[in-house]
């Protein structure tokens, strides 16, 4: 009981900027889940999505963002593989942006103490970087759409092996960047 009272007292110390970032995390998570979910979901699912989206906003430093991002990807795969839906380009880009914003927002929220007084420039720069990354993704998407015959292609075995090698190379590069002193 004493601990609860202490936590309630500490709620009064919450400042605007961390609240804004966590709000963004919630919105991104909720929007991602809604966009990725197959159409015709029951209304109870909306409540579930809501609760699931609150989770990373409350605990951005833990495994919550990863769980919600995995859930979003699973919903997307279920819709496209099981229900054989053909999602539009807008829906695809929206989901990608929501996934990225959830990841980036949670990374920022995890390093911002909840009662911190935050310089506006920090948030503006962060938003600028996020916009840059999303713009680059948009350009990449347009390139892929124009170069490849379609969004959904069946790959021959040779292409599969080459693709896997490319993926392994990309992941190794990213990991090496992370570990590099």
């Amino acid at each position, binding site marked *: 009981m004493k601990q609860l009272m202490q936590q309630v007292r500490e709620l009064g*110390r919450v*400042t*605007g*900027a961390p609240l804004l970032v966590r709000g963004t995390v919630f919105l991104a998570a909720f929007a991602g889940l809604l966009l990725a979910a197959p159409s015709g979901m029951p209304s109870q699912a909306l409540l579930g999505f809501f609760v699931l989206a609150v989770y990373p906003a409350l605990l951005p*430093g*833990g495994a919550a*963002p*990863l769980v919600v*991002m*995995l859930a979003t*990807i699973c919903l997307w*795969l279920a819709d*496209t593989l099981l229900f054989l839906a053909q999602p539009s380009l807008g829906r*695809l880009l929206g989901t*990608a*942006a929501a*996934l990225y914003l959830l*990841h*980036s927002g949670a*990374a920022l929220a*995890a*390093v*911002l103490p909840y009662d*911190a*007084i*935050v*310089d506006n*420039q*920090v948030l503006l*720069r*962060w938003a600028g*970087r996020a916009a*840059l*990354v*999303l713009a*680059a*993704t948009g350009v*990449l*998407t347009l390139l*892929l759409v124009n170069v*490849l015959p*379609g*969004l*959904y*292609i069946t*790959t021959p075995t040779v292409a*599969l092996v080459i693709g*896997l090698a*490319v*993926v392994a190379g*990309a*992941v190794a*590069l*990213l*990991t090496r*960047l*992370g*570990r*590099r*002193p």
Partner: protein
Amino acid sequence: MAQPAEGDLEPVASTDTGDNWAPTRALGRAVLLAGLLLVAAVLLGRTELVILAAPLALSVAFALGKRPRTLPGLRLSTVESFPVEGGDLGATVEVENRDTVGYDLTVVQLQHSPWLRLEGGADPNAPRRGPRGGNRPYVTFVPRGVATAVELAGPAVRWGRHWLGPASAHAVAADGLLVSRAVVTGALGVKVYPLTDPFKADEAMPRAAGLVGQHRSRRPGEGGELAGVRQFAPGDRLRRVDWRVSLRTERLHVAATLSDRDAEVVVLLDLLADAGRSEGVGGTASVLDRSVRAAAAIAEHYLHRGDRVSVLEYGAQARRLRPASGRRQYLTVLEWLLDAHPSPTAQERGGAQLAAGISSAALVVVLTPLLDARSAAMLAGLSRSGRFVVAVDTLPSDLTSPTVNSWTDLSHRLWRAERENTMGQLGEHGVPVVAWAGAGSLDAVLRDVSRLAAAPKAVR
């Protein structure tokens, strides 16, 4: 007069071992998800999964292209300008980025005493919104090669020795994927002097003893106060000759004056017990607060008049400040008072023992809440040994005891009555007890004490 005080800690020399910066959970998450999505894209042959993975992979590649290596530099400084209670105090925490890569943000946290109400932000000119202050972290942007200062300012609300610091900072770079080790500075001590209640006493000192001073003494000598006219005697100064009287009487007469003397004032602080709640300047005051502020006011008043003042502590530590005069002594008294803490003790010296260290001509002002029976005994002992004692009651008048049961009020009243009885008994012993009320509160009592001092005394 201001003197800068700084607590500076250079970070450990940066090494390229990579220990200074650690990856966050976000880095692992981005790499894992991007990898999973790309593998799934290839296995399932779905390009759309590449697009889902693209922003994650791109952001990691952008962010880790340039990595920071050195730790941020941190510096804590304050300008100490002898603040008194309620006065403003300023502190600056400076974060320096000595790297070739800008930090996304730096989280700066400054610990300080709760009696220092320091507030501020990264931009001191920014309009203030919402609740602020109270050991909050400050998040600021630090570009490469630039130092950013977080300015904090606010009042120090209570006297004493307060601590400012340590300050700590950790930087976040690469879009929140890397976080640095925390850098910590040392702590600074801040002295806040007690606010002196206005105090003024016009009455003569009971027995002025020194050679110089402002008090009219009862001894003839060189001075400004006319004592009478008498016949010239060998040794008298010619400029003292009263020519008008001499011409009239046809004998040389001189004007005799009373000498001007200084006096010794001993301020005795009873620190056996404390009571009440201290809320700093402007709030309710505890016994200790009242005692210290009253002692500072009394010392300021008498030192300003050129008297010698010494301060004694009645408690476990039994500290003592030698008598001296002047502004320097005033500053020493203030410094001495900063270390006054309630110090209950089982064995305490009696009034007679205390009196042995006090000049017989000194005026002893005892600041006591009269909460301990030994305090009353000490006062009586001092008075018995022939010192001029005035007791100043420092118990706050609005002191209330927490209600435990229906008997609380009655017992409180009984205790009050008993205390008044003790004060009455002390009065009979020749120790006047006055409640501290600032300016003029000692005047009436000092007048009585002067009269007592002038009266002939039976020698025992």
